[in-house]
């Protein structure tokens, strides 16, 4: 009985979490603009969605900025993590504190500070400024994903490689990087997700007609209900669901192989926690 109550409670919370999404999905097939009534099944909002040039071009910008900023942030962040790992004392503390700054700062503050910087430096707002802003808020998350892997690293590996005649650069590339690769990949994926999900920082640092998906959704939502957004939500939700299922099946498989231990679950948390600034 208690168990039944407990379960019902969780199901109730799930209803709360999923009802809005379900409503959007249902209405994306509604052949009537008004929400009060059901006008029959239609796919026309999906057709219109793909013909909407604003939405399609912002989708393109979102993916482009996401991929490029994630890659650059991963390179800089990984190198930085290695450097931080090898620093000591005040220097390390200082750098770590500055690293936390964009993580802890309210997003809107990061956003306006970058906007002031770009305008002050007379940089034209657009792709470039968006990219710079995204790299900036992504780097800390890469660092924080890579650092734990470095702590697990066997110190003597690197020394052994040097003793065996490797140059430091080669030792880094051949020994260290492969060892911390899982952390780097987590960082990369995290950076990519954060980038495509970001709204606030993009909103303030973009200009000249460059718009990400989030910005487009915001300006459409400000204008009221739009069935095209419902269609977009349905597609995005299905996509995310599929992606998560695939990732989970893979993790479950690896867990069965006994390699990753409880790593799978943990990565969810890590990525989620870091998303808390996501609004």
């Amino acid at each position, binding site marked *: 009985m208690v168990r039944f109550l407990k379960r019902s409670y969780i199901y109730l919370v799930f209803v709360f979490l999923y009802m809005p999404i379900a409503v959007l999905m249902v209405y994306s097939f509604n052949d009537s603009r*008004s*929400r009060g009534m059901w006008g029959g099944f239609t796919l026309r909002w999906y057709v219109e969605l793909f013909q909407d*040039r*604003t939405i399609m071009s912002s989708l*393109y910008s979102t993916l*482009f900025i996401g*991929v*490029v900023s994630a*890659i650059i942030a*991963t390179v800089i962040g990984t190198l930085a993590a290695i450097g931080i790992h090898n620093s000591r004392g005040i220097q390390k503390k200082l750098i770590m504190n500055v690293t936390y700054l964009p993580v802890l700062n309210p997003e809107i503050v990061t956003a306006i500070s970058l*906007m002031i910087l*770009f*305008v002050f430096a*007379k*940089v*034209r*707002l*657009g792709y470039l*400024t968006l990219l710079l802003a995204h790299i900036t808020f992504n780097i800390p998350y890469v660092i924080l994903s890579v650092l734990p892997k470095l702590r697990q690293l066997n110190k003597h590996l690197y020394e052994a490689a040097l003793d065996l005649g490797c140059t430091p650069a080669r030792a880094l590339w051949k020994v260290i*990087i*492969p060892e911390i*690769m899982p952390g*780097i*990949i987590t960082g990369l994926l995290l950076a990519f997700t954060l980038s495509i999900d970001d709204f606030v920082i993009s909103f303030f640092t973009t*200009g*000249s*007609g*460059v*718009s990400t998906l989030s910005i487009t959704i915001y*300006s459409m939502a*400000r*204008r*009221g*209900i739009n069935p095209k957004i419902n269609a977009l939500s349905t597609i995005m939700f299905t996509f995310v669901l599929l992606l998560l299922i695939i990732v989970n099946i893979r993790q479950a498989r690896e867990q069965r192989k006994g390699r990753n231990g409880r790593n799978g679950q943990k990565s969810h948390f890590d990525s989620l926690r870091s998303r808390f600034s996501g609004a």
Partner: protein
Amino acid sequence: MARKVTLTLCVLGLAALSALLTGCGQDRPTLYVYNWGDYIDEDILEEFEKEFNMKVVYDTFSTNEDLYVKLKSGGSTYDVIFPSDYMLTRMLNENMLEKIDLSKIPNHRHIDESLMGTVYDPDNEYSLPYMWGTIGILYNTTMVAEPVDSWDALWDPRYAKEILMLDSQRDSMAAALIKLGYSINTLDKQELAEAGELLKQQKPLVLAYVVDEGKDKMVSGEAALALTWSGEAMYAISENDDLAYVIPKEGTNVWFDVMAIPKGAKNLEGALQFMDFLNRPEIALRNADYIGYATPNLAARAMLPEEIRDDPQAYPNLDALENAEFFVHLGDTLKDYDRIWTEVKAH
């Protein structure tokens, strides 16, 4: 493992790079247009792109103040912008506009003479009118008992939480100032403070402060009354027969939105071509028909259906309109406006 990832990264990087190149590497010149939300038939943009082999980057703002701040704070460059009358004055005063060469815009001859050479730009050196209209009250006849004829309706407690105001400082302040019997261009601090108070008093009755979403809300019956621009009203009425628009008896504001070229525009040639294109009678007709605002293009207006062409709400006779005032730029008093409006919103 490492090699695999490096490879993947390289591929991703290359893909992104090539995407960037195809995105920007086209020879077509780009025209940056900054317009009000829902203020053009977007198909027209595509036709322009095709005909002039140009890429149009189209961006929207929701109030004159947004436009001004965006341009003033720098960082963005546009080739064609659509400010209103008083904002045009402000931009001219601050030397933010480029002169336009009317000889490159032959179609300007279609524009109503009486709407050319206004006080804002007497010789049309910097601007051409795009659309014009009034402010008034859009209301739902099934939700509002008697016909509305006064600004008092927006302060009527019977319609608490059914009133939409504009999230635009000059327009909402204008409604309050007219109701108080003051000029909408008053510089008197006392009168402004009174108008601010009136708007604060009204706040409990207001459902929301909106700009572009207002017409959708009125169409779907979410609110009973809305302060709105005439063209928004015409569009809403065409979607829902229960709606009606009225220019209140106390007076209104007659406004013009113009096309202009901001300083620093990179594609002057394209900007002029775009302005000319928008003034082609058949294009102007389609545009006016699509967005619902009054076009200053006489050739286009002549082709509109009679019931729209002669609708006194859509195309009021300017001479017969009593108590109609234009907005003028307020100079330093704007700071008081900013402050009062911030306070009303924060209230």
